[in-house]
């Protein structure tokens, strides 16, 4: 309630800004990992990129917390919208795929770079598509909402 109605700069608009910054971290870092696995910037050694996962998870938790705050502010806007469930599904799948890439590509330090790329190729492509879907469905929440508030 406070998040929604407070006229303060630090309420709703702050949370939604944090949510956009967190998206930049989470999806930006993931997309870079995917692109590198798919062969972009081959001069960049692949295995050190596992450290980029720290930023992926940081972004992920920022999104969970700020996202939960947005739901608390406008519960019906989310729960009464089919697109919200699509977004949650796509995010879950995206995160699962990122974990699979971590396990299959990055956790075996004996793998050669070419093998890492080969093993991760399909997953990286899938990941890009899923993130695109997740961001798109997230953005569309604003345009598909039917019940912004209880009385709306």
């Amino acid at each position, binding site marked *: 309630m406070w998040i929604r109605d407070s006229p303060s700069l630090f309420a709703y608009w702050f949370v939604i*800004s944090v949510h*956009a910054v967190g998206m930049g971290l989470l999806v930006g870092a993931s*997309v870079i990992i995917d692109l590198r696995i798919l062969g972009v910037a081959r001069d960049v050694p692949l295995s050190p990129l596992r450290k*980029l996962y720290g930023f992926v998870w940081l972004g992920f938790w920022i999104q969970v917390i700020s996202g939960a705050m947005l739901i608390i502010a406008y519960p019906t806007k989310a729960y009464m919208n089919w697109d919200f469930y699509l977004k949650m599904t796509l995010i879950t799948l995206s995160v699962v795929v990122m974990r699979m890439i971590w396990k299959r590509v990055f956790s075996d330090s004996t793998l050669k770079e070419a093998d890492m790329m080969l093993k991760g190729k399909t997953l990286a492509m899938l990941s890009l598509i899923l993130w695109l879907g997740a961001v798109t469905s997230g953005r569309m929440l604003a345009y598909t909402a039917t019940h912004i508030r209880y009385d709306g």
Partner: protein
Amino acid sequence: MYSAHYHLLLNHWPILGTIIALGLFLVAIFANQESLKQISLVLIVFLALMSIPAYMSGNAAQQALKDAPDLSMTMVENHQGAAFISLLFMELTGGLALLGLWRYSIPRKKGYPGARLSVGVTGIVLLFLVTTVAMMGITGNTGGNIRHPEIVTEPGAISALGTLGGKIVPMVQDFVINYSMWIWPILEDLHFIGLILLVGALGLLNIRILGFLKPLPVAALHRFVPWAIVGFAINIVTGILFFIGMPNFYTNNPDFQWKMAFMVAAGTDLLLFYCTSAFRSVADVGPGDEAPFTAKLVAASSLFLWFSLIVLGRYMPFFEVLQ
């Protein structure tokens, strides 16, 4: 200071700037000086950035004048049309100049001869630049005619460029707003995808320079910068379309004005440090090496500017509500 002041502050930059850039570029070509060519190209791309707020601030000037009894709306629309086509050519010229500039920034091994601008790129940039200079001249003239009767030689005369542009602008606006209720959401989505490319590609390069992920050689990360530039280009195009769609939503919004200032600053930061030979000074920072302090300062400023743009973007509707 009123929003209309910004138009007076900004509107001569593209006119005089492109003339100076053209002169400089010609001198560089005849003197066959690569460093001078590089400076001309930087100036062209910078002007392409500056022309965006110059165009947009025109709406504030129009709002300020709309009740003036002697104002000719025909002339205003003619000026806006000419400005729109000029902006289009300025952005194309800027894009081509950036393409030419790119080769100077690619890290090279020691002893390798320096980069040279190819004849083809030189020619096409020159061609577009000359066209842009001419169009900016027409735009300036149609704009001056609105409020300066002392320079009008033929009363009622309007330019063909302005007439053409004056037809295109409402068409674009109609497309963005009325063609389908989904155009705006799709543009928003693209704007976010551009953001992700920018933050992902530049973020990785910047955090590496700051000292994270040290096993990565900095030079190799330069390959990701084009992805950031593509993201920036997507956001410039979609951003201009938002503005043309709902100009009055943005014009007097202080958050928007700050965002445009940050956009020019962030774009210039990207242009100067990562798209010119300046990048070569960090290119020899190999795996495990510490980047120099000045490079860290640049990386921190880049992160600050791009993340500020995200926050300013998200706060935009809030400031609209305040008005």
